[in-house]
């Protein structure tokens, strides 16, 4: 009997406590930078697309919501000809971000993606591309890799030695 009265009292006192609810549309929580929300495709510091169309994100995706087609542009770089994410399927697991070798695909702290039409949740490359570098500011894949493209010969990348002539006996 006494415990019942105590229970009632404790419950009553809770009415005076601060409420845990965040009144959402008016007030929004600060999200951490690594929040897994809307997926974007970032650019390198020179403004070029980072994506090299390696298909790793697409094959890592557990719900197969990423579709893309690789192509080679006039500079000899691999690029996606199209890049499509179906956000009505996406589960925001972040495996694509982990799989990406060039930091191109990244998840952002944005979750307000509601649509009235389901078809509007299919994002094309122009919807996904952003102008900035995202979470990896200084990184440029072609500047650190040995891959040869127009304007950059082999051995010209950062921390890369010139290629050795395998036909020469000189050291």
């Amino acid at each position, binding site marked *: 009997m006494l415990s019942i009265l105590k229970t009632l009292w404790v419950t*009553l006192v809770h*009415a005076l*406590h601060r*409420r845990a609810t965040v*009144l959402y549309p008016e007030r929004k929580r600060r999200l951490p930078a690594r929040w897994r929300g809307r997926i974007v495709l970032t650019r390198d510091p020179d403004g070029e697309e980072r994506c090299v169309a390696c298909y790793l994100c697409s094959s890592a995706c557990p719900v197969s919501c990423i579709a893309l087609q690789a192509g080679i542009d006039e500079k000899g770089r691999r690029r996606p000809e199209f890049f499509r994410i179906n956000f009505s399927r996406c589960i925001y697991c972040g495996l694509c971000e982990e799989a990406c070798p060039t930091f191109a695909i990244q998840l952002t702290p944005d979750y307000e993606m509601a649509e009235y039409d389901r078809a509007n949740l299919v994002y094309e490359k122009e919807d996904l591309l952003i102008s900035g570098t995202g979470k990896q500011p200084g990184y440029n894949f072609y500047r650190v890799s040995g891959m040869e493209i127009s304007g950059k010969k082999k051995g010209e990348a950062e921390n890369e030695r010139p290629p050795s002539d395998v036909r020469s006996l000189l050291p």
Partner: protein
Amino acid sequence: MSGIAIAILVIFGVLFGAVLIAAGMTWFERRLLGAFQERYGPNRAGPFGVLQVVADMLKIFTKENWIAPFADKALFVIAPAIIMISTLASFAVIPIAPAILVSDLDIGLLYFLAMSSFAVYSVALAGWASNNKYSLLGSIRAVGQMVSYEVFMGLSLMGVVLQAGSFSMRDIVEAQHGMWYVVPQFVGFVVFFVAGLAETRRIPFDIPEAESELVAGYHTEYSGFKFAMFYIGEYVGITLISMMIVTLFFGGWQGPFLPPLVWFLLKTLAFIVLFILIRAALPRPRYDQLLSFGWKLMLPLALLNLAVTGGIVLAVGK
């Protein structure tokens, strides 16, 4: 002529007042439960979310009025009407203020007890007519619970009747001029409060509609308007029990400074809040615990209270 007009006004005022309070409680309860659980509850529609009531009504009345093909159709339709009619009819004998009383019956208290027993039919028929095992289990539990709690609900009030010397609700209120009956009849008050909780099938006595075991108990098959009758009927029942407690134990409309109507509504509101607080705080007992609590503790307590009150009234007069 003006007498009849006033009478009609009082009748409709009490009727609509009761339904309005019950409808408002659906919002009030959720807000209050929210506060007890450190959240907000419905706060979007209108100021403080009061228009939530309108939104809920619109929603529930535009739902499909479904009758299950395997149900007993006539009983299925009648059952929710019974609970509304019987609880609303009880408001006729409640003296809300000296001038606001639909019917000053000599046997007002007995009338109330009869009407609250009538509500058992609603629950029993709803479960039976649904032809569904969860509904039937729910209504079996409800009937067992309500019949056993009826017994000491009546007995707990007899102490009040002995002291007031009348079954008329107005006489009972007026007899509490010097002292509210909650003081001499404290045991009776506690027993009646527990029985009232059980009558309205509220937590912790919501075993008939225990959603974790029986889906929704006797109203599992109901939807739309007929479900609304059960739903609002529960809140009308809470309002009724709160008003009965105020009338029988807390001096009804009596109180200093404020007008009688305000006093009555304030006291009623306090008990409605208590009902909601109990819902927020207490868990649901097992079915056998509930029945043994009723028969082995509450009933002897009510009988003892009645015997002691009777002895004292015999020895020293009222």
